[in-house]
């Protein structure tokens, strides 16, 4: 019963079909690369993104801080997370641009994930999916 209700709300008819055309790209990059990446993405036609300052760990281990002899291991490294929603056609190019721009060839350069977006709406106009980007 509950599952049924949930399903009805979550999958409105038309959205399923159109949603396949929109991708969400999540990238964690080095903070100092943010401006460069933004410029490169704007140049290939990306018209918006969300940016969050985050901490995390991957293959890059943290560092130790010492305060008057007291050592603290800092295991989480500061990164910037980008969330970019683009039309399917642009997605591959976005991934390529981020990976070339954010690259320093040192560990800790980051990761990129690509996800399908079910539905997108522009708040001001109510336009959906591709039109909402």
């Amino acid at each position, binding site marked *: 019963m509950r599952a049924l209700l949930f399903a009805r709300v979550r999958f409105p008819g038309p959205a399923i079909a159109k949603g396949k055309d929109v991708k969400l790209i999540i990238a964690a990059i080095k903070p100092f690369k943010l401006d460069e990446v933004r410029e490169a993405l704007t140049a290939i036609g990306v018209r918006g993104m969300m940016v969050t300052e985050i901490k995390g760990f991957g293959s890059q281990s943290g560092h130790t*801080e*010492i*305060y*008057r*002899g*007291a050592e*603290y291991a*800092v295991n989480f490294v500061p990164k910037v997370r980008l969330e970019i929603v683009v039309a399917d056609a642009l997605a591959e190019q976005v991934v390529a641009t981020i990976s070339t721009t954010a690259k320093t060839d040192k560990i800790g350069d980051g990761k990129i994930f690509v996800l399908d977006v079910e539905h997108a709406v522009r708040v001001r106009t109510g336009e959906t999916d591709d039109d909402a980007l």
Partner: protein
Amino acid sequence: MNYRTTFASLAALPAALMAGLPAWAQEAATTATETATDAAAAAAPIIDKGDVAWMMTSTVLVLFMTVPGLALFYGGLVRTKNMLSVLMQCTLIAAVVMVIWVVYGYSFAFGGGTSPFWGGTAKIFLSGVTVDSTAATFSDGIFLPEYLFIAFQMTFAAITPALIIGGFAERIKFSAAILFSVIWVTFSYFPVAHMVWDAAGLIYNWSAIDFAGGTVVHINAGIAALVVAIMIGKRVGYGKDNMAPHSMTMTMVGAAMLWVGWFGFNVGSNLEATAGATLAMMNTFLATAGAIIAWSLIEVMTRGKASMLGAASGMVAGLVAITPACGTTGPMGAIVLGFVASAACYFFVTTVKHKFNYDDSLDVFGVHGVGGIIGAIATGILCAPSLGGTGFLVEAGTMGAQVAAQIKGVVVTILWSGVVSVVAVFIVKAVTGLRVKEDEEREGLDLSSHGERAYNY
């Protein structure tokens, strides 16, 4: 030099004042009560406007050391959740001690009594003090308005218990911090100030030199912080949680304010705007500079990086060490003292403290206690004329005798403050309890004790 000899003559001043303006009329009264030496030549009491201006400035500078200087220095060193608790403890302790000082503190320290241990009750509620009362300086016949002397000494009394809170920061109950401070200033600060600075005082009469308060303020506070830090126990999560300072910027700003304020503390302790004051000024610059360089150099050599906290710690260590010595040491001696004290404090807070495994949160003992002890003893060496100092004070006139006098003063202060602190902790434990509850400590004292937050971003 005639160290604070003449505080005792304060008692006689009301008599002198009745004589009013005609200076010659006072001569007899003043001379009669001047302590033994140099009294014969006593001239009419002169209040110099230059001295008054400088001492009013110094008094305010010492207040500036406490709030905001010390408060910010300590505040930056604690975690975000405890910032306000430290600011509040510094502010309230200073306020409470100011009131206590005029009610009975001044009398207990400088009330004119002849006991070697306290000044008696003659000046409780500032009894007998008027705007015309005067207090002696180091020069015969030169006086300060007594209100000014009271205010200057009041700021010293106010900062000393505020220094102690660094030892038990981040876990003490607010009420316990205040109650401990009241008991401790009453039974440790006032008596030790009397012993060291009053002409009737025990340590004073051993001819130990403590120009601006190395024993009275720094050793006294350092020992109290050590005692309470051990008795109250470690912070929850000590050694496991990240307890890194929340704002090194605040700490640097606070330390720099301490340095500026310290010119009131050290140079003001000359009580007059004379050439002797300029020596104290030079030394307050140079010992501190030497200590900052030393701490940073040691850090570079031992771990490759010089830290801001290291430079700030060296700054305070140098200031503490030069405090007793600033009026009697030559400028070159001051640089050496800064270097040595800084190295000793570095070794203590980075190595010795961790070996003994107690939690003196902000290293009050490691910096003020250790730096104070080194400064107090080195004062006996560096006052040697052959090292550029102004000469020994002890009758024997030898370095050995002066150092012995210094060590005796240090030992008495350590024992006195230690015993008073232990007793005070037991009393506080019984009356208010010492620590906040564990969950309150985890939440942070800002919210649990004060109901507010330092930063609302």
